[in-house]
């Protein structure tokens, strides 16, 4: 018993050291939430592919899984009647508020946290568990998801290396680390389904919601993914670029990405 306790304590210590070291490596000494620095730090071209061999192998595995599981399921899902797809998509978005709202607060965006709390309450009740997006119908501003990775980025934590995880897909080191916060109390949906034994919802509900979210994403982007794959010279590099551009955009919550593309590379090219 005593031995077990010592082993566990030593493991927790090791994990803590690894986490602290990783964060320390990723945090720029001059960390700042200044837009331009944020833009530069999260620029896809600046993010290293430190484990490219592993990433490409993992990417190939995910492509295999996509071919066998996600693509066939998504191709059936996308031909379902629009009200069904919208209902599923709306309720998944509504559920994601339980992660978005704490992140709005952690990023200091209190008014957005208020708006999203209102949105969540209205859609969960009047909108029947989020199936109908009543909040948007009555004029609430467009919903933007937030997560712990975005919050760390806003507070100056750099992205670290690019990483492709089996099944879970593309990430950065920062976002991978941040997503563990969901399992440490940061995701209320996880807390009431998996972490705690409640009578109304179960582990199955949590994992089912994750799988459905994956299928919904794949179906929404069905043509775009097919098109990208068909027209890419290096599909792995294209997906990496698209993922990192999307993260940069989400972190900044603005049009700065487009504006920043008015860069020297374009300027030098005359006609």
């Amino acid at each position, binding site marked *: 018993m005593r031995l077990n306790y010592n082993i566990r304590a030593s493991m927790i210590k090791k994990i803590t050291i690894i986490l602290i070291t990783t964060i320390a490596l990723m945090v720029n000494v001059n960390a700042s939430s200044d837009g331009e620095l944020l833009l530069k730090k999260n620029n*896809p*071209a600046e993010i290293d592919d430190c484990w490219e061999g592993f990433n490409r192998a993992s990417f190939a595995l995910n492509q295999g899984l996509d071919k066998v599981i996600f693509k066939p399921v998504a191709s059936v899902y*996308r031909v379902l009647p629009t009200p069904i797809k919208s209902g599923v998509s709306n309720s998944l978005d509504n559920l994601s508020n339980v992660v978005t709202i704490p992140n709005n607060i952690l990023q200091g965006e209190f008014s957005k946290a208020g708006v999203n709390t209102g949105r969540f309450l209205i859609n969960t009740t009047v909108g029947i568990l989020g199936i109908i997006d009543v909040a948007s119908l009555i004029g609430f501003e467009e919903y933007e998801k937030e997560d712990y990775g975005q919050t760390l980025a806003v507070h100056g934590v750099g992205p670290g290396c690019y990483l492709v995880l089996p099944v879970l897909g593309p990430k950065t080191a920062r976002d991978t680390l941040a997503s563990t916060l969901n399992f440490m109390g940061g995701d209320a949906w996880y807390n009431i389904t998996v972490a705690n034994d409640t009578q109304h919802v179960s582990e199955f509900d949590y994992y089912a919601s994750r799988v459905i979210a994956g299928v919904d994403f794949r179906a929404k982007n069905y043509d775009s993914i097919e098109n990208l794959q068909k027209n890419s*010279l*290096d599909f*792995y590099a*294209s997906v990496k670029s698209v993922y990192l551009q999307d993260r940069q955009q989400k972190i900044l919550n603005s049009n700065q*990405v487009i504006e920043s*593309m*008015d860069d020297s590379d374009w300027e030098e090219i005359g006609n």
Partner: protein
Amino acid sequence: MIKKILTIFTILISITSFNSISYSIEPDIFVQSTVNRAASTLGGNLNKEQRVEELKKIAKETVDIYGVGMYSLGATRKSLNDEQLKTYNQVFENYFLKSFADRLAEYSNPIIEVNSKEKLNENYTIVSSTLVATDKRPAIKIEWRIYTKNPDAPLIRDLIIEGLSLARTQKEEFSSIIQSANGDVNALFDNLKNFSNK
């Protein structure tokens, strides 16, 4: 007689002046007319090969293929000699036209609505539009980076789909290919040629 000559002379002067005045094309109108051209090609009675040829023609007239090619090459373009640049421009144009036409030829009748424009500076305007939703996919926001250095002949330099730049994606893809070949740009040329010959 003198009156007639004067009248003819005046008309001639007017026509000549009219022709010499250049009319700048507003970027949003340029995008809408380009989209309409592509839509009528895709929605017409042409077979796939004819569609592809027509789309290539539209691309040659409305896209700054040279500019996109140079941007996609990134910093590598500074290290190429004239011969390599010539080869690159040729293989890139073939690649671009095939890729552009193949992508669009899949759509039967896309409806794009131009919403607004924002002038970034003298050289660039961003035109915002929406690809209207269908039963199978939601609406998609598309922004067009229009090169307006010559206002009489604006050109498309990039499409930004839901915030993701096609030119940037292509640039990072090309960079990855060159890096994987230890900096050998010929690997990129071979990839571009293979794609065009598919």
